[in-house]
């Protein structure tokens, strides 16, 4: 039987991949959700995004990377939406007592970590190499203040792009 056959309009390959990865998707939800409702909403959104990412990529790129990108991008959108929402109670409220306890303890240990730190923690907990963060966020690995300082001290010329009529370029080229 063909491994990627379609059943009910949904690729069996994608279904099994998403089923295998669902624990990891739950894992990133732990870092961003405060309530049961948020947790479930974020989970379904990530699964939908992951499925869309895999289906939309015609080239056979790493499907796992597509799933992780969906995780990180949807978590970012969730954070933006939460930031913009009117002030609400941000206390942790989950249904099962064990989960509530674990979540409270974990959040206390984590403190006020930034989202970037949460992404790094996610990779750390999932035993993924740090280089993976570059593929997922698009940020270079050596992005830190000391790197910039060293470059400045060494008097290295800064990379500048050739701006041909900057105003027109900005208006005509959407990037």
């Amino acid at each position, binding site marked *: 039987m063909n491994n990627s056959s379609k059943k009910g309009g949904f690729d069996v390959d994608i*279904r099994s991949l998403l089923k295998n990865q669902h624990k990891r998707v739950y894992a990133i939800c732990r870092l961003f959700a405060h309530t049961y409702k948020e947790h479930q909403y974020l989970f379904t959104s990530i699964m*939908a995004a992951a499925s*869309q990412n895999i289906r939309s990529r015609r080239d056979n790129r790493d499907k796992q990377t597509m799933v992780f990108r969906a995780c990180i991008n949807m978590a970012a959108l969730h954070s933006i939406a939460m930031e913009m929402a009117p002030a609400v109670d941000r206390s942790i409220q989950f249904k099962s007592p064990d989960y509530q306890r*674990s979540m409270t303890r974990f959040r206390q240990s*984590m403190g006020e970590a930034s989202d970037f730190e949460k992404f790094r923690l996610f990779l750390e907990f999932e035993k993924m190499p740090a280089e993976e963060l570059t593929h997922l966020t698009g*940020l270079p690995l050596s*992005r830190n203040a000391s790197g910039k300082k060293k470059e400045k001290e060494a008097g290295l010329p800064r990379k500048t792009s050739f701006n041909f009529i900057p105003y027109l370029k900005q208006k005509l080229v*959407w990037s």
Partner: protein
Amino acid sequence: MELKKLQEDWDSFPEISMEERPILSSDLEKIVVKNPLSDAFYLRRKLLTRIIVFSVLWIVSAVELRSQWISDGPDISELVALSALLSYGLYFHVRLLFFADYPTLLSLPLINFLGKLETVLDKYILSFKFVSGLAGFYVLALLQYLLFRSNKGAFETLSHNDWYKWLILIFISVSFDILLLHTIIPKYRKLLAGVRKYREGIQNGPK
């Protein structure tokens, strides 16, 4: 924060709970057909609606322009301007729709994804200028129609005075623009500012 302590707390999460239960195939079938982007970020439907409306208006204005051209009517300059505005508006919206490329948007790396969202929102805000411009043309046409029905003398004066017509058109367009700036656009501006702030926060790293 201590990584070891965090790892311990992380590992202490229950294997299966109400919150993290294994996913069923039937649930998955329902989930994957869902659109992951919320209405605020997903502008595809709005862009498509505008493209359809602009296309219909473009066809109507082209037919009207042709008939005015043949009969040497008084509104040729207006109709040429309207057709030009509709053509550019149509191009702008189609380009924005192709640029946004919603099916592949979420597969981009985070910074590129946020950057693209910013551009799409920024251009969408800009696209309201087309709506204001078109409102000017169509409200003026409505005004002329009402005058034609109620006061033929006033209608004749207005339709033979290009200067008045253009002044009224500009006044209506600017008024409509101000109205949009205070009603619909702030929501998108707020969203754009939120996305930009988040992207800059990620790019600048932890404080």
